């Protein structure tokens, strides 16, 4: 990769992405070959927001590379509670670890943190900003299931605040992909993501109804619409209900449709889809391990050179 850190999917070229995905495929084929690759190395986990999958998969990925992890623990029991700045926290953890994974509720937190440390830093989610390591595992899953070129994808749900959406949409502009965005009016793509898509020459095709595009799609990427985005419960229920899918919804889709979700889901994908061939979200979550192993392997090896 050209970067020392992974902050935003917008910084990734097609070559960068393919390097990570190819390495992930190697790891998938022969995990044992990577078992001692980073023995003696320590990964710092700084999560200022709750996380299950991302934290556990980075933890697991580092351990499967032979390394160890040191975890800041919950914010409530850390020095952050005493008023320490993020800039200070990451500079301290830099002394304990060889690389750092950061999740933070403020947009731009990872960009700032990277200005204060010299070790590789991975943005594991900055507010409603970016979540590029999720994007890499999403791309890996798409490549395995549908291929990354000549692809039509629908991205549905909370496109305004959904950081996985922002990262994925940007990264997909490196490939021959037609992107459709399906959301309520109030949760459409934010200005900056739209700007980048236009700058990359991608068409932004927006819809408020899934029915409009479902039959064309090779991949449907569903995200959760959160209750707190709406002024009242009734409005939320009315809107969110329109973006829930079940087995009946998918009767209008092609047999090959791949349904993805960054998880956790609440009720936007009905459990009756789980047993169909469309359901790919658990495979997607499992791909977090080889992809994050590949990412850490590349960043740590680069830092050694």
């Amino acid at each position: 990769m050209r970067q020392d850190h992974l902050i935003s999917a917008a910084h990734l070229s097609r070559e960068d992405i393919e390097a990570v995905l190819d390495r992930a495929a190697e790891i998938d084929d022969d995990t044992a070959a990577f078992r001692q690759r980073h023995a003696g190395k320590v990964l710092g986990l700084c999560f200022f927001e709750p996380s299950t999958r991302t934290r556990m998969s980075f933890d697991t990925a580092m351990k499967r590379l032979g390394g160890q992890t040191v975890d800041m623990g919950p914010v409530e029991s850390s020095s952050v509670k005493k008023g320490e700045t993020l800039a200070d926290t990451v500079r301290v953890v830099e002394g304990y670890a060889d690389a750092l994974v950061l999740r933070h509720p403020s947009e731009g937190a990872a960009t700032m943190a990277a200005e204060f440390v010299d070790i590789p830093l991975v943005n594991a989610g900055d507010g409603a900003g970016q979540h590029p390591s999720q994007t890499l595992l999403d791309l890996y899953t798409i490549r395995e299931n549908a291929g990354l070129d000549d692809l039509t994808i629908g991205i549905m749900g909370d496109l305004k605040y959904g950081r996985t959406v922002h990262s994925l949409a940007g990264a997909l502009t490196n490939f021959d992909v037609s992107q459709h965005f399906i959301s309520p009016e109030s949760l459409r793509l934010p200005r900056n993501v739209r700007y980048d898509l236009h700058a990359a020459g991608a068409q932004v095709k927006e819809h408020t109804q899934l029915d409009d595009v479902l039959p064309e799609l090779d991949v449907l990427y569903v995200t959760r619409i959160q209750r707190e985005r709406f002024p009242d419960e009734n409005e939320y229920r009315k809107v969110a209900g329109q973006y829930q899918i079940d087995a009946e919804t998918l009767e209008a889709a092609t047999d090959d449709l791949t349904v993805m979700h960054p998880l956790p889901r609440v009720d936007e994908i009905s459990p009756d889809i789980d047993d169909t061939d469309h359901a790919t979200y658990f495979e997607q979550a499992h791909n977090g391990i080889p992809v994050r192993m590949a990412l850490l392997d590349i960043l740590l090896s680069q830092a050694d050179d």
Partner: protein
Amino acid sequence: MTDDHQLRVSKIQNGTVIDHVAAGQALNVLAILGIDATSGEAVSVGMNVPSDRLGRKDIVKVEGRELSQSEVDVLSLIAPAASINIVRDYDVVEKNRVVRPDIVTGIISCPNRNCITNADEPITSRFTVLSDGVRCDYCESIVREDEVAANLDVN
């Protein structure tokens, strides 16, 4: 006689005249330049002055201070048509246009309240200048040209 009509703002002996400022932006110009009652310079401001080029314009004259190009370039974001005249002994000795900078550090605060630059961190806001606005280098929010004046962080 003509002079009496035209000279709504008195001539200065030495200093800088910022002319052709978009009407209504004069106080923002002063704010960006960090000029207020405490900074010591004598300042004259004309607002909503008739102008051939702009219809109406603002004009700012700062006595005793020659502003450098880098100091004034940031004005291009709120007053793209501004011209900068350096005056010595009542004569204009240098006349320049403002040039759009590539980066603006400080001066603008990010309108995204959830941006890390608005948290209590030891950093200064930084924006990359686009063709029609600026973009926060941290959270990537875009501030359109017509929104810049409302997001000045000059106090």
